[in-house]
């Protein structure tokens, strides 16, 4: 957001769009056509029909890059695609939450999923579009930001 020199719009949406708990100890499973690992940098890259499953959340992408810190801990999963998609089917959600963006990254240490570039999330008939949407697992909150060309828009259907 600082990059665009604009203020950040914060939308904390507890309802009707809602996020829920992930099983933090759950394994991350990744399937792909091929993969590459560069030991000095610790970066692993999966390409081709990438599917990442973490607890009840599934990411589909063309490419998934995994970044590690010098101690070998995973810092970031970065999924990119045309678009990359996310689907969560947590029991606490009334309906499955789906999202898509040009890139989706998961920051395990912060517990954040960030959708960037024509980001959209949808739950039931409710839709949020924004340049950037952040899903906070710990706070069970959804944040959206604007950039220089567009700002968030939300469509909520009456229940």
């Amino acid at each position, binding site marked *: 957001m600082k990059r665009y020199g604009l203020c950040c719009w914060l939308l904390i949406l507890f309802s009707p769009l809602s996020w829920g708990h992930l099983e*933090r100890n759950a394994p991350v*499973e*990744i399937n792909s056509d*091929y993969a*590459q*690992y560069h030991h*000095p940098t*610790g970066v692993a890259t*999966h390409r081709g029909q990438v599917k990442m499953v*973490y607890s009840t959340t599934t990411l589909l992408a063309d490419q998934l890059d995994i970044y590690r810190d010098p101690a070998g801990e995973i810092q970031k999963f970065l999924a990119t695609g045309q678009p990359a998609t996310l689907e969560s089917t947590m029991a606490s959600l009334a309906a499955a939450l789906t999202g898509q963006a040009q890139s989706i990254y998961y920051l395990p240490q912060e517990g954040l999923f960030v959708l960037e570039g024509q980001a959209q999330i949808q739950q039931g008939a409710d839709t949020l579009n924004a340049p950037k949407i952040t899903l906070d697992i710990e706070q069970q909150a959804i944040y959206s930001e604007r950039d220089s060309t567009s700002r968030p828009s939300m469509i909520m259907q009456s229940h």
Partner: protein
Amino acid sequence: MLALKTQPSLKKWGINALFICSAVGLIVLINGWLNETLIPIKSLEHGTLEEYMHQAEIRKFNLQGKLERKLTMKSLSHYQGLPYATIIMPHLVMHQADGTHSELCALRGQSYYSKDIKHFDKIILQDTVQLRHASKLEGNWQLSTEQLTLFPSYLIDTNAAVTLTHPQLHLSATGMSGDLNSGKIRFHQQVKTQYQGQL
């Protein structure tokens, strides 16, 4: 007279017995040596074995005199007419600049080398091929497959199924290639990865 008649006979028997014992002893010695050095007796009979090394070790040092690579093997044998030498239990240790080291080993291999035996073209490792990397910081990881080709400049390649295990990671794939110098590994097909533990 009896003594005069029996003396040559006893002497002859003694010589024969000594000869037989010597022959048996020689056979036992040769057989023992052959078993010890693992040379197939049949190959010697046919005279096809051309070169043989037992418990060989080759070391390579860098310009500062530090050990870079060490290749050991239980035996290496080359048979006439074959373009490769058969290696039993090859074990390559590669010391990295960062203080870590990697090991590549297998139950057997075939070394294709130049005629002056100074350079090898490739080594095909077979049966329980393992590439291990030890690091205190990142933990140890091990890559296993049934066949792997090692090229000069330490490029590796296989079309076989591979698995990579690490305390927090399990990966399986079909086919792999890599550069042991740069630490870049590529898994070719059907890659399945599982990261475990708290992320």
